């Protein structure tokens, strides 16, 4: 007995009894697991700090009038951090100072798409379009309520609320239908919950510019583009569209895109002269 006790190592003895053997989880592994979140946190913190530094540098360059440097800094921040309405807005301000109205229009549209409640971006875009001689887009009532909804409430929160209500209604309906007893009012309430939830969900979905403006593009060619009757250089010109104007791309064919203006005119234009608001990978 003594011999066998002597043969046991420290971790395996507790109050004189051998512990059950652990499979694949040694103490160093546990220690490593505990360290991993710390390392991850440190990495994230350092990245965020360096990101913050880069943005401070960009802002300083902007204030100092070094717009090319500010633009590079905002663009690299977008590449590193990913899309952000604030970053696109600051980039647009820099592009305006650089006299790049079409690029600024694109950045502002991206900022609005990411955060429809950015009224400053809407104001700036409105200013910019008027300065470029771009007519205000006709606002059908559907577009109008979509915009109002997007501006007033968080579409993500609305989507979640709508989903929750709909699911509560759906599960309640299921329970009510299969239980015994009176059913009229419980079923009615469940159906109302279901319908209201679905309506809120659909409204939030349709109001989301990432859905409704999915095909939007902006004319980047400095002199604007011509919408042609056919995808050929010699085709008849349907309409001239100024730089910075909004178009909706219906389909692509080689180097040509079939686009529609907000006022309904359709035609072909070179894909190179426009850029989609939703960045392509």
């Amino acid at each position, binding site marked *: 007995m003594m011999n066998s006790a002597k043969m046991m190592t420290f971790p395996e003895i507790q109050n004189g009894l051998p512990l059950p053997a652990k499979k694949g989880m040694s103490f160093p592994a546990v220690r490593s697991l505990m360290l991993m979140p710390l390392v991850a946190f440190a990495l994230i913190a350092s990245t965020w700090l360096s990101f913050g530094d880069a943005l401070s540098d960009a802002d300083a360059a902007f204030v100092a009038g070094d717009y090319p440097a500010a633009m590079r800094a905002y663009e690299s921040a977008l590449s590193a951090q990913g899309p952000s309405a604030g970053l696109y807005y600051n980039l647009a301000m820099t592009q305006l100072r650089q006299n790049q109205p079409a690029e600024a229009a694109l950045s502002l549209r991206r900022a609005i798409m990411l955060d429809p409640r950015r009224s400053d971006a809407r104001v700036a875009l409105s200013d910019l379009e008027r300065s470029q001689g771009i007519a205000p887009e006709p606002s059908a009532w559907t577009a109008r309520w979509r915009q109002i909804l997007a501006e007033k409430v968080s579409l993500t929160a609305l989507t979640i609320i709508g989903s929750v209500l709909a699911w509560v209604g759906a599960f309640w309906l299921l329970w009510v239908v299969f239980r015994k007893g009176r059913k009229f009012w419980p079923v009615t309430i469940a159906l109302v919950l279901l319908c209201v939830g679905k309506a809120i969900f659909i409204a939030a*979905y349709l109001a989301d510019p990432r859905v409704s403006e999915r095909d939007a593009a902006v004319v980047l060619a400095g002199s604007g583009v011509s919408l042609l009757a056919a995808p050929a250089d010699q085709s008849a010109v349907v309409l001239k569209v100024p730089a910075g104007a909004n178009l909706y791309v219906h389909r692509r064919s080689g180097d040509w895109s079939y686009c529609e203006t907000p006022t309904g005119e359709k035609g072909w234009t070179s894909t190179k002269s426009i850029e989609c608001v939703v960045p392509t990978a």
Partner: protein
Amino acid sequence: MNSLIKYAGAAMVFVACATASLRAQQVQAALAQDTVGVGQPVQLNISITGGSGVQLPERINVEGLDIRRAGQSEQTQVTMANGQLNAVTSAVYTYLIIPIKAGTFTIPAMSIRVGGKELKTQDLTLTVSGTPGGRLGNVPVRPAIPVPQSQQRQAPGQPQVTAPSRPQTLTEDQLAFGDLVIPRKTVYVGEVVPVEVRFFFGVPGKTLQEKPNFSGDGFTVSSFGEPVRREQEINGRVYQVLVYQTAITPVKAGTLEIPPAELPARLQVATSRRADDMFGGLFGSMGDFRDVPVKTEAATLEVKALPKEGRPPEFAGAIGQFSIEASASPKKAAAGDTISLNVTVAGRGNFDAMGPPVLTESEGWRTYPPGEKFTPSPSDPIGFNGEKAYEYMILAREDRTATPVAEFSYFDPSLEKYVTLKTAPIAVDAKGGAAPPATPPAIAVAASATPSATPSAEPTAEPEQSVLVRNFSPATFRPFVEDPIFLMVNGALAVSWVLLLLFGVGRVISGSKSAREAATRKEARKLLHKMQSAACPPEEFYQLAADFVAARLASHSRDALEAAPLGSETKAAVAAILDTHDEMKYSTAGTFQLPVEDRRRVVAQLKSFDDELR
């Protein structure tokens, strides 16, 4: 042949005149000028279309004005359209108004009976300033349409109004003559002055060009409209009159010599019979033709510079008499949405040269140079009367409840002073942007194009830092409904719901009568299966058999067996089985034996019983 043509033409005109009575009649009254000085005569024309021979009063009584009938002219126009001959008779009745005192006078509407119809003219307003009138330029004051002296009723003490008076026997230079009518003697630089150029033709002939030659140094001339053609009787001779309307605008101060207007024409000077041209037509005489330049007289105007005293800073060159009004649409605007502020300047004056109204009280608004559209009055061929609409796009930078105010300054030549008009602010509900950006370069260029017109359009300088934002929350271009977590959660809920639905449906199905019967049958068959086992002792075998019968009949009662839809043999066999079961259960005889053949027989009987019950 000529006679035949003449009679045929007369017949056509007669038919046309007869149909003319079916056409709509119109009556219109117009003043040659709305604003005059005391003693300065002004002409009132009452035009009647679709009727003639109308009885009008010789005098119109308005206190402060002396209004007398001065003459009339009639004209029948025959046109051929779509193979149909149409004739329209029109008449112009001319009154001469002599203002006796200063003030604003309303000439009342007149009821006129034309072709059995009672028609009414509109009220007219004449403003008489204290400035003495009298002779205008070096042209004698005369009505727009000269009238024969024989028809004039000259009041004692009134200014002499002379018509172009020509002798009955026309000399060569009196075959045709012109008249340049300029309503004012003293004008201002930049002021638009309406002018009538009239050409009188006492003999048949035709003009050699459509528009007169009329130009000179120190003034510009607007384009001529289509001439109005009339017949005018002067001293017993009928003249054909072409009246051209235009406007001149002096460009420098001082004495302005206005040269004669000239219209080349080909006139018939002999009296042989020949059909030709516009004045001869069907009934024209024939003769030799001579090309002559028909000229008006020259004129002189005194041109004054606009006074510097009292000139408002927002004055942008408008000279005349104007009114202003404004409207806004929409009344509610979200952040970033523009409101269209429509400002209309109406009246008479130099619409071509005037600048737009200035927007004031525009703090918190961003304004842009307006778009503009001029609409002349329908009866004005020279664009002197009308209205100019300015559309301002305004954008709230802060929450605003009222639009900016539009201010418009002009110089009124009749009052000889500057006037500033203001619109009232219009109530709106406009939401402003949180942090409007500084004006982009392109906007700054656009705004600087009209700095004096919209000084408030220049945004206030904002610190560069303030246009940047510091909120960099990560976002995605993927809609939230396409987020994997959202899709997974909703998918799991959907699967759960479907499973619960299936469970509920299963429960409903299992609770039904047929389900219960099926369960009973299944249970009974299990008993039968147990009975077939060789290891099953006889007591248990018969107990199972009794249970099987009870399960299938859903009763332990013998009455149920009797009532069951079975054959008598089956009933007897089952009754025997139940008797055996009772015997084994209640007997104390000891152990029973059950041969295999008996087991098989009993099982067969029970199967038969089961089959018959289905």
